[in-house]
């Protein structure tokens, strides 16, 4: 019998559940390695070579190289782990979050100052058709 996953119909949201954790283990451990300054330096010096040291898929590597965070999420990345890459890139969590919404950073920041993204119309995938 399948697990109940009632969160599947929340739009624009991927819940980091056991399936994602299984898929993203090595990818997230790679992100975690960026907590150490010497690893950040080595990664920035030659990103592909550093990624090749990890047992992660070519697709996952490509998503990291392109900083395509929605793709990273779909391939098992967890935001608290890939947040280490925001910091490696000297970016704030706000800039990182904005990049996943398709909004420019300033536009995103203004939305937050105006009270954030409304939940109206954002509860169910069906609402967005």
């Amino acid at each position, binding site marked *: 019998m399948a697990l109940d996953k009632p969160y599947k119909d*929340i739009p624009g949201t991927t819940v980091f559940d056991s399936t994602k954790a299984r898929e993203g283990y090595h990818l997230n451990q790679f992100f975690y390695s960026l907590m150490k300054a010497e690893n950040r330096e080595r990664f920035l010096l030659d990103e592909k070579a550093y990624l090749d040291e990890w047992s992660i898929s070519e697709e996952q590597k490509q998503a990291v190289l392109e900083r395509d965070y929605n793709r990273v999420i779909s391939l098992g990345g*967890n935001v608290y782990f890939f947040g280490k890459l925001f910091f490696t890139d000297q970016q704030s969590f706000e800039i990182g*979050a904005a990049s996943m919404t398709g909004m420019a950073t300033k536009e995103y920041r203004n939305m937050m100052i105006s009270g954030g993204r409304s939940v109206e119309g954002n509860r169910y995938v069906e609402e967005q058709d």
Partner: protein
Amino acid sequence: MARITAGVATSHVPAIGAAVDLGKTQEDYWAPLFRGYEFSKQWIADEKPDVIFLVYNDHATAFDMKFIPTFAIGCGERFNIADEGWGPRPVPEVIGHPDLAWHMSQSIIQEDFDLTLINEMEVDHGLTVPLTLMYGQPDAWPCRVIPFAVNVVLYPPPSGRRCYNLGKAIRRAVESFDEDLNVQIWGTGGMSHQLQGPRAGLINKEFDAEFLDRLVDDPDGLAAMPHIDYMREAGSEGVELVMWLIMRGALDENVNERHRFYHVPASNTAVGHLILENTS
């Protein structure tokens, strides 16, 4: 005996710590937020708790994906400040209370909550930002701190009901400790926020206001709220709010609400803050 005298709830956004550390608290963006904690700083200076039992979540800092404890209690003598990728925050090290923490561990595990016991770990912004909000920038924290880490990184976190009941076990563990200690319990994280995906930036003021009301007046009913309601209504990371129920469970059924504050935004997040005092 030791007593839990009060509970504090507050968000623990990392950018708040950075704003303090970089001297930006008077800037237009940040000043309204810090004004909301002025009462709290005076209050805690008067209350002088001996120990803070600080419920928070680790953000892939002390715990990577190698092992993920649902509930972990810091029993060590001291806890260093973690380097989260931009150097450790310039805040004092955190001094634990191993005698009380070990006593509580034994008591809580005997009530069927399987805690992970930790002697050494680094603590991140989830723990240090609440201390900064309440105490400012002292040379040393004026209290001992028992870190209590709850998994909210990997779904599922513990349920609201389990958190609320754990709070009750925490209270009994404190009250069976012989030494006279003024203990506070803090619940941190939240409020509504989503950090990931195209829906990032979600804020739900109505949800947050109702959550604050029910946390004070109807915690038992609030504890029944399923995870899906937090995630759908308050954002995928809004589920951190279950940690506030641990704090609430450790307090009296009827509490005195001393202070409430709510502000949007701090970076991606709605900031909520409560001070609740026991009446008995």
